[in-house]
């Protein structure tokens, strides 16, 4: 018979305000096997843990139940406390009476009743617990970074500096990401390329960093410390070793009508291209969809002009398989599509542009060589209107509920740069709120208003109407003056909301990392573990986790790197002993379990057995506990009940259900 101790936590008033904890103690003490029950204000505190320690020793407890918060929060805390007191840590059960009870209920009587039932179920389970021992697994000392923007580059550099090998996988032909498209950066107005390109060069030259550009992660298997990843290197059609980056092929390529993604479609590019002049690697790719050679078989100009003989039309995609100990996701963002926002006439007038398009127009290497002009007639604008929160903080389904965070600052930057360079241009900004928390941010915004005379109007724009004379009539409201505003503009700039890169869903699925309703990757804990995914060994860097600017992205990239380094620094990891185990006496070798196992952890062995004097060879399932993640799929699928999950056995689960229904 087990000797069970029950510890009920008040969690300040989090639990005690809704659940009568004394009553829970009283009821728990009546359960079979319970020899000790007490409550305390904060069971997780040092004093609380000391109470557990003392009770285990004094009452010689063989199992404990802690009625507190979610096991995701403090299961490890209490397991460690039990271990210190000499109890096997797997003899600890948590009854979640906070998230599952006090936080979601209002009525004290009902909540108390439920808390008692949850405690009872945990007591029933712990009565059947058996001590389990953790195993060990090795750590591959190499990290994978998915995404080669500033977040990915910074994470890779930090990991590499600590002495570990890092691979960056970047989907596009060059690393650099969104930051390479920007002109200036707030709040210091330094040139984006001037601070980014040295980092790109550093990453590409670093002996510990290996960069796969024009490549995508295809498949991920394994677990923390020992991931196996298939990387698809898309056929570049250009030999990377032979190419000298002279650029003649791009000049001579006759098909130059492909919209230039890097310039947000404001101009066109050739079918063989590097996205931008400072691309790393400086080796072009052939866009097979738009290349005449690939479409009709006739052309081949690039191969003819290439002195180095680097053009290889017959290149095929290649799959590289690598092992990694840690994976960092740094997949970044894109701006939303504006086809749901036709009141701003984005699809109707080329002079209505997004802020990212304006970045390209302002950039000296952009489609207008940095000269501010309208796309429609190349005339210099006299009046410009900026509209904030296009698709951000949006109550209806077409937009995003969240604040995109960076728009207030980059709009202040744009407004200031334009007023500085072209003082005769009138700049008006329509805003809901101006949000500028950040070091030197509000000072920056106030400079735009006070020194540069940018006209900020609190209110939203209802319509942008292209006029017959080519002007844009902006119809808005001034909430402070309480009046309607009609003003003509030559250009309208929309601060479109940002959203996670489209591919993040696919990647999250491969990594079994969770994502929220907006497709941002979820942190293990929003405050205390902000750069870790709940999936062990997967870390988050940059906007894939939530909107952030460059300083924050770089800070988070460093934090993700530190977490990855912490993992790579270990030689061995303790494994979870709650794995599946097959009972040879019951297994009939049907292989149903192997078919449902998502981790490939089940194999079969043939074994000679002596069944009442009859010697025969039988086929048995065998679980590789290093691969098993304890998901329990096999235990449900097994038709003969041979498969059981240690720590969550069928008997234990049924005992819990019985206790709840009693």
């Amino acid at each position, binding site marked *: 018979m087990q000797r069970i101790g029950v510890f009920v936590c008040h969690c300040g008033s989090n639990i005690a305000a809704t659940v009568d904890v004394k009553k829970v103690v009283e009821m728990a003490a009546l359960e079979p096997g319970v020899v000790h029950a007490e409550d305390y204000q904060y069971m997780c505190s040092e004093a609380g843990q000391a109470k557990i320690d003392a009770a285990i020793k004094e009452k010689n407890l063989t199992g404990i139940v802690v009625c507190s918060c979610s096991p995701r929060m403090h299961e490890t805390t209490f397991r460690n406390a039990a271990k210190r007191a000499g109890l096997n840590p797997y003899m600890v059960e948590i009854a979640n009476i906070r998230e599952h009870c006090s936080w979601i209920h209002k009525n004290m009587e009902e909540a108390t009743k439920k808390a008692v039932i949850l405690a009872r179920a945990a007591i029933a389970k712990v009565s059947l617990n058996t001590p389990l021992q953790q195993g060990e697994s090795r750590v591959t000392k190499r990290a994978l970074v998915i995404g080669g923007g500033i977040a990915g580059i910074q994470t890779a550099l930090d990991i590499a500096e600590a002495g570990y090998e890092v691979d960056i996988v970047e989907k596009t032909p060059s690393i650099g990401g969104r930051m390479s498209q920007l002109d200036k950066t707030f709040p210091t107005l330094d040139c984006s390329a001037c601070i980014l390109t040295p980092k790109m060069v550093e990453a590409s030259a670093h002996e510990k960093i290996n960069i796969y550009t024009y490549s995508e992660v295809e498949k991920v298997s394994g677990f923390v410390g020992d991931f196996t990843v298939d990387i698809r290197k898309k056929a570049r059609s250009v030999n990377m070793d032979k190419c000298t980056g002279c650029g003649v092929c791009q000049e001579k390529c006759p098909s130059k009508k492909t919209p230039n993604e890097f310039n947000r479609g404001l101009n066109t590019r050739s079918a063989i291209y590097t996205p931008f002049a400072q691309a790393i690697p400086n080796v072009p790719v052939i866009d097979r969809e738009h290349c005449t050679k690939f479409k009709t078989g006739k052309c081949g100009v690039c191969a003819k002009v290439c002195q180095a003989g680097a053009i290889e039309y017959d290149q095929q995609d290649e799959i590289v398989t690598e092992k990694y100990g840690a994976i960092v996701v740094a997949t970044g963002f894109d701006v939303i599509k504006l086809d749901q926002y036709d009141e701003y*006439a984005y699809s109707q007038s080329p002079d209505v542009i997004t802020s990212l398009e304006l970045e390209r127009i302002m950039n000296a290497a952009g489609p207008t060589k940095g000269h501010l002009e309208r796309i429609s007639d190349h005339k210099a604008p006299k009046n410009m209107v900026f509209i904030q929160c296009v698709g951000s903080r949006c109550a209806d*389904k077409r937009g995003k509920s969240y604040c995109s965070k960076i728009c207030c600052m980059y709009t202040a930057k744009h407004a200031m740069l334009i007023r500085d360079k072209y003082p005769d241009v009138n700049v008006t900004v329509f805003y809901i709120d101006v949000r500028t928390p950040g070091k030197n941010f509000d000072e920056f915004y106030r400079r735009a208003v006070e020194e540069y005379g940018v006209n900020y109007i609190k209110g939203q724009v209802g319509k942008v109407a292209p006029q017959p004379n080519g002007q844009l009539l902006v119809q808005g409201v001034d909430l402070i003056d309480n009046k309607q505003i009609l003003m003509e503009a030559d250009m309208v700039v929309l601060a479109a909301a940002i959203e996670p890169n489209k591919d993040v869903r696919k990647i999250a699925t491969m990594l079994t990392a969770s994502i929220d309703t907006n497709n941002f990757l979820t942190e293990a804990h929003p405050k205390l573990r902000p750069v870790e995914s709940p999936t062990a060994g997967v870390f988050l860097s940059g906007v894939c986790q939530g909107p952030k600017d460059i300083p924050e992205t770089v800070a988070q990239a460093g934090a993700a790197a530190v977490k990855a380094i912490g993992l790579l620094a270990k030689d061995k990891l303790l494994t979870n002993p709650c794995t599946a185990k097959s009972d040879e006496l019951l297994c009939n070798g049907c292989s149903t379990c192997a078919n449902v196992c998502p981790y490939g952890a089940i194999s079969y062995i043939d074994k000679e057995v002596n069944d009442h004097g009859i010697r025969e060879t039988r086929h048995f399932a065998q679980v590789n506990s290093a691969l098993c993640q304890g998901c329990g799929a096999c235990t449900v699928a097994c038709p003969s009940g041979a498969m059981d999950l240690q720590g969550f056995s069928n008997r234990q689960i049924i005992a819990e259900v019985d206790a709840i229904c009693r």
Partner: protein
Amino acid sequence: MVYSYYPGCTLKTKAKDLDAYARACAKVLGFELEELENWQCCGGVYPLGSDEIATKLSSVRALAAAKEKGQDLVTVCAACHHVLKRVNDDMKNVEDIRFRANNYMELDEPYAGETKVLHFLEILRDRIGFAALKDKVVKPLTGRKIGAYYGCLLLRPSDRMQFDDPENPSIIEDFIRALGAEPVIYPYRNECCGGYISLKEKDMAKNQTDLIMESAAGMGAETLVTACPLCRYNLNQSRTQEKVPVVYFTELLAEALGVKAEAAETNAEAAADAKGNTKPEADTDKTEDMQEGGTQS
């Protein structure tokens, strides 16, 4: 195909031509508009009060009548379409309204939004198809530059009306193309004409319609086409110098299908009958509706 038809009061008074052309065109296009018996005024405005029941009942009656006949319910007037569609939506989705309305109605079988409400334009787009419509055109309106004027009622609220993209609609432009004319896209085609505000604050409505007219004329529209009698009335009140004539979409359709003259004749006869004090039957029990319709125009 036979549809239940809800003409509405305005189509019986100030917008008789909208009705007459619609019926004539339906014949050519091979479907029948069967006018509901004893239909009542929809109220002209969808009642926004969430506890408002009485003003929704006339719509429920029409909807339930169509259900009984097993037919889809068709409207031509944008305002009637708006009210019927939204009341139907309430009957389908809002339990409280459904329960209380059915309590009042005491129908043989409770009504729960089963009827499909269609606008005449939706029949052209979704049932007949603009390509098929193009084949039926005998007098294409080649060379004419026509601007669509949508107004609000067909488009908004878009999640309820599910008619077209509220900010960049295309159904009437596609319709104009099918008739052989050239659609003129101008930004104010989905702006409010002022609606009933023209009863109280004439200037405000005129400000709106001035904007719309100037925008349409500036983009080169020679004719504006609408589905709403009130929009047409307001647009005609605009103070713009260069007024663009505003016609109902059914008139253009009748013209392209070659039945305009015939329909106009029937319409004139009906008008003459009305003048000659031989009141149409339907009017006797709808005196109030007549007044309602009257104030609209």
